[in-house]
């Protein structure tokens, strides 16, 4: 049994079906990537799984327990934690305070981090611990978002476009930090548009299109899948590519 099981998950906004019966199994010992064109339902999937938006149908199980629609803070306390596309932080507080708030909530978890400082060391922000979060450059703000999420002692971390807005070297450094998480017992499920990074980083890719899962498997296989190529390149370009 996978740690996170999603069964027939549906989400409708009025007449728009954002998720149309998604099934997923995600474990906590690997990096799983979720890809798909804009509007395919990736962020909505995270929102519904983590209780930010209520599900219209289907169910989410965490270690076998039904956590559908139980509320965002309760899900976070079960150590299923997500980040937003915008860095998750409080701009008016210091870097240390930001992480400390999350750490205070998460320290009843597995006690992985003895102090907030350890998390800052891990993500490379220790020298900036006294800086006001709102004054950080974008790359550091992204790291802070990750540090805050780690503070909650996640068992599975859902990262929504962690590399968005980063330059190549920042994105590579960020990916290196993410790659260190599964060996420490923190599973990662991430959304990103950088297919090279996703192919390198992920053990498994899941492809969504119009709220439906159209492919799943090792990155090499998934990216070679004709349905996935059609979604990304379009039917005409696919023909040209082949």
């Amino acid at each position: 049994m996978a740690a996170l099981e999603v069964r027939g998950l549906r989400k409708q906004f009025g007449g728009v079906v954002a998720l149309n019966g998604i099934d997923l199994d995600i474990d906590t010992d690997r990096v799983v990537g979720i890809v798909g064109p804009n509007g395919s339902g990736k962020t909505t999937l995270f929102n519904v799984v983590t209780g930010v938006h209520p599900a219209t149908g289907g169910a989410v199980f965490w270690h076998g327990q039904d956590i559908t629609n139980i509320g965002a803070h309760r899900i976070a306390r079960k150590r299923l934690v997500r980040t937003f596309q915008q860095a998750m932080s409080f701009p008016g507080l210091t870097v240390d305070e930001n992480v400390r708030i999350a750490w205070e909530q998460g320290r009843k978890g597995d006690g992985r981090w003895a102090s907030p400082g350890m998390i800052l060391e891990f993500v490379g922000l220790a020298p900036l611990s006294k800086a006001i979060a709102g004054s950080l450059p974008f790359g550091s703000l992204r790291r802070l978002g990750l540090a805050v999420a780690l503070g909650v002692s996640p068992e599975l971390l859902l990262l929504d476009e962690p590399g968005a807005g980063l330059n190549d070297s920042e994105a590579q450094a960020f990916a290196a930090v993410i790659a260190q998480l599964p060996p420490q017992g923190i599973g990662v499920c991430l959304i990103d548009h950088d297919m090279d990074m996703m192919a390198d980083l992920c053990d498994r890719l899941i492809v969504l299109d119009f709220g439906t899962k159209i492919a799943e498997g090792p990155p090499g296989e998934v990216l070679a899948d004709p349905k996935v190529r059609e979604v990304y390149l379009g039917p005409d370009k696919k023909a040209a590519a082949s």
Partner: protein
Amino acid sequence: MDIFVQQLVNSLSVASVTILIGIGITLIFGLAGIVNFAHGEFLMVGGMATWFMVGAGMNFFVALVLAGLLVGALGFAAERCLFRFTLNRPMNGFIMSIGLSVILQHAVIRVFNEFQKSITDPVGLVWTIGGVDIIAMRAIVVAITAIIVAITYFGISRSRYGMALRASVADRDTAELMGIPVRRYVTGVFIYGSLLAGIGGALMISLFPITPFTGSVIIIRGFAVSLIGGLGNVGGAVVGGLVLGLVDGLSAGYGYPEWTDAYSLVVMILILVLRPQGLLGGTLGPKAS
């Protein structure tokens, strides 16, 4: 000089009541986004309860504590039964609070009557310090407020719960995703803010007579205090209360006393025009989702 010092103490005692109501308003707005117009009536109920208990022979300071607890319970009931349903619709909460304010006024008139109530000075002492006569109760009001402000400030800035509260005020959604039970904090803030209003009402009736309509006057001052300092900022409520209290006290002593309220509101308007976020910077309240 003597008159100036006396006016200063008077100003601080008036400021104390507005600071207590301002802290409640600012916390409730900052976290829940609710402009709670009934908060003034919470203060009035605290004052009326104190009048009733003191009239029944209870010690003033015991009555003060009980009034705080009573109004804290009223705040709990209001949040659980009413405002929790408007958390994502702050305008509904605002209109509801106006309705609640009128209902509380009428309830108090029904239980007692519409006439003003007062109690005798609970301490009845005048201290002479350096040749200046200071009414002891006014100094006690300032001291009680200072203690409450210190507890609130350190609780918010140093404690684990205070940090979580600040995080929730800054960004409710992010705080929830960190595992912070924001809804529980909203309830807690309602109870605490209401408790302070109850204590403020008790302190107020130890200084001035109050009527069932006092709340609708004091709420304007409470909002002025919160806006001057910066809505959502506890330190701002203290600074705003001091500014307004000094303007009140000194204008009563040296200007035209009948213009006291106008002076205060002119100061508020000027600050909001020149520094819309308030003197210490505030929040726009949580995003409505």
